[in-house]
């Protein structure tokens, strides 16, 4: 039985240019192979090596197939752009279909799904393959795009054709065996081969491998000696290690198992056996590393969790917060002095693990500065000091942070300054309104400084501070929805009002694609407790 599927002939390839561009009006499965062939022609014309061209064609195929398969409202307009910058490609696929939901959440589980033999899942590998192949994949839904289209963007940062390949150390004093094993693996891995184990030890720090395959019986330093020597180097103990030996009995020796060796293969080893074991151990090692990184992320999230005392002088304070698992970073600082309580609500922009790490680093830095400033300065002076400190610091300048600093005085006075942060709201008995306080991002105001807004609250009045993550849930109507809701519940306690607003946030956040940290603080003066 046979079946043949032939797609229509594709147009002659365009002459080599700086970018590959295609505009499609709708797409079906049958449109994808000819498009892939045109892309192959373009990549060949640009001199892109076959392995990388295959990766790019796979990723474009996966994105387009998703656009055919999943959106309730299919795409009618698709723009594909691929630009080469040196050895790297930048892909942008724009479309007008129903936007993918929960892209960030899917990214977090995509890697773990790449285990077909264990999961026996018949689908769901596409996103994991894209992420595995490329340095970065991002998705911007149409409501957040200036051109009103969804954008799936893929970016690479390869410094050589072998980038993304896992690195293996092969160690064997038999040059013929070493060459044979290298040939079995070199199409899949970046191989460093050593006839002398001492050379492998020396090379370890300079180009740490993802896995070591070593002969057991070698003069001067045998395989067990190499394992011990690497274990003493940074990262050596966690690098997967495979022994190869012609002596099958060695596999069961106690000293082998005590060394924590990951597998033992008997020579001569079949090509596919060696490739399967190497692949399995590298994948297992990656899963363990990702598990540890996930735990680290959780610990960072817990460390950053915003918190304020629930009362100060005549003030009652409610705080609601939700942390994205990996991304962004809202955090608070506060310090009571004999005359006031100084507070900071900060939001480090960004999504993903890197943003969480930056938040952690920034929180530590701000904490030190805050301790120095909160005794003597007011909120505007604190923000100016922060701006000056950032000015010229390459790391701090690279991170976008918004920050609101406020000072509560025991009898209802409050002083506020803002560095790019959403303006607070004031809730009085007759309704709610925005407090006119604004200022530039910290990095932009080292000389100009910040305006200080002071208010005297009456009994029952409240002031609401919120981060972008909270306001974004309400889309463009965010501020007016919150003003209306808060104004109609002006009599509630800070805690009750916070609970109401948080409930509204929970109902609206469902349409958010890139989850960010969200925080609101409501400080109420006197009135009902």
């Amino acid at each position, binding site marked *: 039985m046979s079946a043949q*599927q032939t797609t229509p002939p594709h147009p002659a390839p365009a002459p080599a240019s700086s970018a590959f561009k295609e505009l499609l009006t709708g797409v079906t499965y049958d449109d*994808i192979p000819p498009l892939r062939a045109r892309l192959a022609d373009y990549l060949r014309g640009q001199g892109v090596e076959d*392995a990388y061209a295959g990766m790019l064609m796979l990723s474009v195929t996966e994105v387009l197939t998703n656009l055919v398969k999943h959106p309730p409202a299919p795409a009618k307009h698709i723009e594909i752009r691929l630009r080469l910058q040196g050895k790297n490609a930048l892909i942008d696929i724009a479309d007008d279909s129903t936007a993918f939901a929960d892209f960030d959440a899917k990214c977090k589980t995509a890697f773990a799904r*790449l*285990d077909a033999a264990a999961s*026996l899942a018949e689908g769901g590998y596409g996103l994991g*393959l894209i992420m595995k192949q490329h340095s970065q994949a991002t998705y911007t839904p149409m409501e957040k795009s200036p051109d009103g289209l969804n954008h799936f963007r893929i970016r690479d940062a390869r410094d050589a054709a072998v980038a993304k390949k896992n690195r293996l150390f092969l160690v064997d004093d038999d040059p013929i065996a070493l060459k044979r094993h290298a040939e079995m693996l070199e199409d899949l891995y970046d191989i460093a081969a050593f006839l002398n184990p001492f050379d492998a030890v020396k090379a370890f720090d300079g180009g740490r491998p993802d896995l070591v395959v070593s002969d057991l019986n070698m003069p001067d330093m045998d395989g067990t000696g190499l394992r011990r020597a690497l274990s003493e180097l940074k990262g050596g103990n966690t690098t997967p290690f495979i022994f190869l030996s012609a002596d099958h009995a060695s596999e069961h020796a106690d000293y082998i198992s005590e060394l924590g060796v990951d597998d033992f293969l008997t020579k001569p080893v079949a090509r596919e056996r060696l*490739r*399967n074991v190497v692949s399995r151990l590298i994948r297992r090692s990656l899963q363990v590393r990702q598990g540890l990184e996930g735990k680290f992320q959780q610990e960072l999230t817990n460390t950053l969790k915003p918190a304020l005392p629930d009362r100060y002088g005549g003030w009652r304070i409610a705080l609601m917060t939700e942390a994205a698992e990996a991304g962004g970073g809202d955090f608070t600082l506060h310090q009571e002095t004999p005359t006031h309580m100084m507070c900071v609500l900060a939001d480090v922009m960004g999504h993903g693990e890197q943003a969480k790490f930056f938040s952690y680093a920034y929180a530590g830095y701000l904490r030190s500065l805050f301790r120095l400033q909160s005794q003597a300065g007011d909120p505007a002076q604190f923000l100016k000091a922060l701006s000056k400190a950032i000015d010229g610091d390459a790391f701090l300048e690279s991170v976008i942070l918004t920050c609101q600093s406020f000072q509560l005085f025991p009898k209802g006075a409050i002083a506020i300054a803002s560095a790019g942060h959403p303006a607070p709201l004031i809730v009085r008995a007759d309704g709610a309104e925005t407090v006119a306080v604004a200022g530039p991002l910290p990095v932009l105001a080292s000389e100009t400084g910040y305006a200080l807004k002071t208010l005297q609250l009456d009994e029952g009045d409240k002031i609401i501070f919120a981060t972008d993550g909270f306001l974004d849930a309400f889309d463009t109507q965010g501020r007016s929805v919150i003003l209306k809701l808060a104004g109609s519940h002006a009599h509630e306690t800070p805690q009750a009002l916070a609970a109401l607003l948080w409930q509204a946030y929970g109902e609206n956040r469902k349409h958010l694609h890139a989850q960010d940290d969200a925080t609101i603080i409501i400080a109420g003066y006197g009135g009902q407790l």
Partner: protein
Amino acid sequence: MTITSQFEIENKPAYALIRFSGFVDASTVLQARPVLQQQVPPATTNFVVDLAEADFLDSHGVGLFVTLLKRAHANRGHIIFAGASGQPLSVLQMVGFNGDQVQYFGSLEEAEKFLQETK
């Protein structure tokens, strides 16, 4: 890069041979899945997937192979890839397509030899 996709199914005494050439993607799978369902007896133990002439594999192709692996699992058999190289082999490696019931051989002849030896 080809723009054709072809598959052939042949039921042999010890295994079902599925031979792909050109690309193996969602459009191929859409055609191949019902044909496999109809043509390959449920009791088939071993599957040999010949990819020597295949030059492109996507995640939908992987999904089809997982279906075969599940059938091999159920019947305590194997799925054997013969002649896989280049992009299709890289994809199979990336999705972790290995384990005791998955074998790779350079050619169909080697795959057949393996099946004879494990009878």
